[in-house]
């Protein structure tokens, strides 16, 4: 039976996860203070933290799984659900708020039907809000895949997302 696109994706991901687990085992010693760096390294490789990774880390550090889950869910940076191809982060810091970053988030929500923390149906992008990037002099700030863009407004944001949507190919 032919594999569907999403089955292909799933197989690839399983291999990735296994690879990351091996890397983590090799790079870290297994001391409790390594928990957060391990989670960070895994997320950098996979863009999110699948359950298998959390359990593998718990085994390596000889901690109860609950402790690992507790730490992973405490910090904003860690995502436990898969994300889209592009990550859009709109800053909700004070200066950005005063300069109207709310409008950008609302506009994206109403136009593209993706709210903060959500991923678009076609998995092309995930929208997040961040408490502050520290580029306050250029408010409002939006980060598209690690590229910081200042002096944003709803129409500029819309253009960026429309060009992302026009990208073809399976994410």
């Amino acid at each position, binding site marked *: 039976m032919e594999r569907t696109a999403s089955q292909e994706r799933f197989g690839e991901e399983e291999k990735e996860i296994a690879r990351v687990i091996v890397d983590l085992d090799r790079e870290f010693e297994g001391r409790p203070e390594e928990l957060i760096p391990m989670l960070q390294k895994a997320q950098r490789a996979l863009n999110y933290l699948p359950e298998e990774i959390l359990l593998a880390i718990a085994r390596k550090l000889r901690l109860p799984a609950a402790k690992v889950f507790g730490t992973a869910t405490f910090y*904003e940076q860690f995502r436990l659900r898969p994300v889209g191809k592009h990550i859009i982060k709109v800053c909700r810091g004070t200066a950005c708020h005063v300069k109207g970053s709310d409008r950008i988030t609302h*506009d994206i929500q109403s136009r593209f039907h993706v709210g903060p923390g959500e991923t678009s149906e076609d998995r092309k992008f995930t929208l997040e809000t961040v408490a502050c990037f520290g580029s306050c002099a250029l408010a409002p700030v939006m980060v598209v895949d690690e590229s910081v863009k200042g002096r944003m407004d709803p129409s500029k944001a819309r253009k960026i997302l429309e060009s992302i949507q026009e990208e073809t190919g399976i994410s």
Partner: protein
Amino acid sequence: MDYTSMKARAYRRWEHLINLPQPLIFIGMGTCGRASGAKEILEAAKRTLKKLNTLGRIVPVGCIGMCYAEPLMAVRKPERPFVYYGNLTSSKTEEILTSYLLEDDPKPERALCTQGEGAMEGISPISDLPMIRYQKRIALRNCGLIDPANIDHYIARGGYSGLNRALSMQPEEVIQEIKESGLRGRGGAGFPTGVKWEFASGSLNRTRYMVCNADEGDPGAFMDRSLLEGDPHSVLEGMLIGAYAIGAREGFVYIRAEYPLAIAQIENALIQMTEYGLIGDGILESNFQFDIHIKQGAGAFVCGEETALMASIQGGRGMPRSRPPFPAQEGLWKKPTTINNVETLANVSAILQRGATWFSGYGTEKSRGTKTFSLAGKVKRTGLIEVPMGIKLGVIINDIGGGGVDGKKLKAVQTGGPSGGCIPMTLRDLSVDYESLAEAGSIMGSGGMVVMDEDSCMVDIARYFLTFTQSESCGKCMPCRLGTKQMLEILEDICQGRGELEDLSLLESLSKAVKKGALCGLGQTAPNPVETTLRYFREEYERHVLDKKCESGVCKALFHYEIDPETCTGCMACARHCPSQAARGEKKKIHVIDQDKCTKCGVCYQVCKFGAVMVC
């Protein structure tokens, strides 16, 4: 290598760069610069030099502080001062470089200022610029003037002379020097640094830790980021001096994950320090031994609080604990630990370099030295500034910042982030120092300064801050966890038209309870924005609860937009930009807003050049 040889070599290299017989171009490549397009400017500069067949050096520098004008470039022709240009594009960069390098026309009308020896006709020196004139850059002494990735630049300008001097003193003498300088913690609490160091050094425990708190979490603050990106060694030298003073052999720099460039600069700096014998064993050929590890934060504001930070370093949830024991008694892994802010450490290295007497000559009696501020919000010249303590608030906002934008009336200045308060512009003569700000109901905080104008709703601002602190609350103690939630719900009710007058007294008593009962600084200061806005802007709250009106045009349920038929010229700008087709009209005819379609996004209000869109 010994310090004297290191300094001589660095100085030679720096002099060689500064006196190049070819053009020298500095481009601001901090995060602000990059976000404004500095990379494209760099490429344009490279291309232009190639096109002109000119040899020249392009050096990436950190933040000079004029963020409103980023991307910035400074061009130095041999024997001339640097000429600064701002708000550049690729084509403007090419144009200016071609004109100056080929035709010797620096285009004075496009230039911001000069910097360095010599004058240029038609261009003011940087010290004359209102934004710069009132500043005194001590922590930021090198930012924007050196390549942060080149340790020799730092050393050539006096870097590590402080450490060298400290190593020739007894640790107690170093502590005494910091005490005499009057330096207070720049992270927000303002605790005397020398006294803090004394606590840890007095411990009987042999193992001690030195920590740099680079978890700058206040939204609206970016001073620490700029320091770490623009002059990482000034912070690391301070850390080494502190470690020597308290007797620590190991240290951590805890940087928030949202600052990837800062992390990269610190990593690079540590590698260079290892090469130069400034870290590890036998630092500067002495007995002093110290190692630094980088720990990344993971997106939790509360981890800026000392005990939460230490919990995070140890690999757990960043949840504060009660004190005593204080970190200086029992900190990381129960050992004495000193935690200092980035800016504090950048001041430490300056103090050891130039002396406590020099430092304490600036500022006021109780607030010595200078303070950096991230000036942001509704002000013309946003950026990173450093001023002597005691300067008047109005001088910062109007003279340095250039006043409001778009002719709007300024309303308030928010200082201290979510732990701080909103100071009305009527208090423009307020002296900016720890005590005066506290008396006014706010705090100095880490240095975030956000300017608000008539289009900001102070009730919405209070709601905004409570949204932040409520979501960042670790949840451990009931007064914070439930108190902030309750305050937030009341504020949301008020902003949506469901508020009543009694809610205001309820907010006041909740504020008192949360302040008294919370376990850590986050909860203890979370009510501050509410308390100050109630104190200074009570009429706005009353309008919201009694008349159900938001006059600033922010709380969507409490206002609507209307077009003034007397002022509308029918230019169609609003109709063109309206995303919901609510603003409609024909050319040269009065336009109207269909209230059923209007989402109150505010675009028409912003684009109308005639002020015809009114908040009703």
